């Protein structure tokens, strides 16, 4: 776990992810100062998960990044698994490190964003929802990347979905069941969409997203322990 934290701390892309995580929501909140609203601050924080998506993806993809042929074509995962041969232990330590960093970033980002946002209300339950949502989102990005062993596809898909065009949101406009996608359900922990087909209490949103995270991490663990490194 300490080794995994020190791995994260020594990757520049993790620092980039942290900067995005803190600056994106607080920056937007700053720009939106003139337009107060009930969800001011929380909306920005829903958008700010991009930072922890990058974190979850690069924590795994950095292990599989292949050096150029001229430097021998090695991958860090071989070093990792010869230092920690138990794959479950390795994966658990890595997931824990990602979750811890994501939660910390969420706390910092939420504090900054809420103090900038106009007319924001500090509601402990909703803010806890933000921290939970960020942590879970990082773990989902982590789990998907364990399965793909490559960062580009999950990074692009997940980032586009949270920023430019939310595919899951569009689907939910047509199919009520799409409201149970982890991103939409999880966001219920702190924002209430006004045009939704499914009514969902924050606690239900929490349970649905927890289910997604548990299932994805279980699949990732099974695949990771069985396949060749």
């Amino acid at each position: 776990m300490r080794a995994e934290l020190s791995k994260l701390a020594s990757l520049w892309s993790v620092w980039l992810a942290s900067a995005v995580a803190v600056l994106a929501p607080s920056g937007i909140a700053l720009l939106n100062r003139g337009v107060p609203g009930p969800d001011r601050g929380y909306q920005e924080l829903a958008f700010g998960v991009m930072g922890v998506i990058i974190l979850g993806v690069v924590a795994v993809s950095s292990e599989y990044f292949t050096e150029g042929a001229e430097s021998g074509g090695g991958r860090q995962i071989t070093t990792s698994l010869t230092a920690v041969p138990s794959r479950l232990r390795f994966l658990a330590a890595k997931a824990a490190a990602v979750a811890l960093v994501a939660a910390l970033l969420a706390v910092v980002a939420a504090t900054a964003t809420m103090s900038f946002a106009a007319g924001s209300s500090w509601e402990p339950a909703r803010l806890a929802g933000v921290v939970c949502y960020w942590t879970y989102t990082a773990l989902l990005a982590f789990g998907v990347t364990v399965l793909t062993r490559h960062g580009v596809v999950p990074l692009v898909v997940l980032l586009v979905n949270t920023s430019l065009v939310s595919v899951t949101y569009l689907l939910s406009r047509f199919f009520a069941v799409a409201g149970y996608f982890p991103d939409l359900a999880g966001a219920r922990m702190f924002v209430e969409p006004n045009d939704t087909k499914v009514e969902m209490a924050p606690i239900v949103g929490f349970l649905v997203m927890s289910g997604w995270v548990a299932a994805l991490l279980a699949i990732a663990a099974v695949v990771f322990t069985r396949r060749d490194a």
Partner: protein
Amino acid sequence: MCRPGDAGSLSGVITIDGLVKRRGAKEILSGVGFEARPGRVTGFLGPNGAGKSSTLRILLGLDRAQAGTALIDGVPFAALPDPVRTVGAVLDGSGAHRSRTGRAHLRWVARAGGLPLSRVDEVLELVGLADAGAKRVGGYSLGMGRRLALATALLGDPSVLVLDEPINGLDPEGIRFVRTFLRERARAGRTVLLSSHLMGELAETVDDVVVIDHGRIVAQGSLAEVTGAHRNLEEAFFALVSR
């Protein structure tokens, strides 16, 4: 390097038996078995694609075999109580992420293995990278990357060293360094197992030879036994693998 008092307790026998590995329909290993003993440098030789890397990756628990066993002191690598102090591995490239410095790489490995961080500068010194520790791995030459991989393997001062093609792509100075280094390890009672497809480079380094071709062991024994009546190891090798 060799701490006083531990020479007597060193073991580190590698026992590989009946390994079978298939990828899709292709059988990569067909019952590979051999032994590597402490105090000897064992050369695992074969042409490219013969199954050397697969065998070593199975030994290190990175790949799974369909049948057979690969044990270190009687247990699989993943079951070793203290893996980093028992086995050091040098596989492809540097095994480090290019955006980290060499020192940062060694520090996380030391943490993962429960080793004191003071080992980091010791191994950097040992492989001649003391001045490059603060440089990013992406800026290393191939030879420096290989030295970093060797430094990583040596962090736990292990009784067994496993190296896949350690001299591949190195300049003459690098080759000489690796050779001398491995001979010293064996002299200190450690087990050294290295694979290579470069026969000529190895004859002066190895004590024992295992030859693999198309996933089968075609010869094994001491250097003299395998060379036999041939002029040198290279001749013997080509006679063996062209059958």
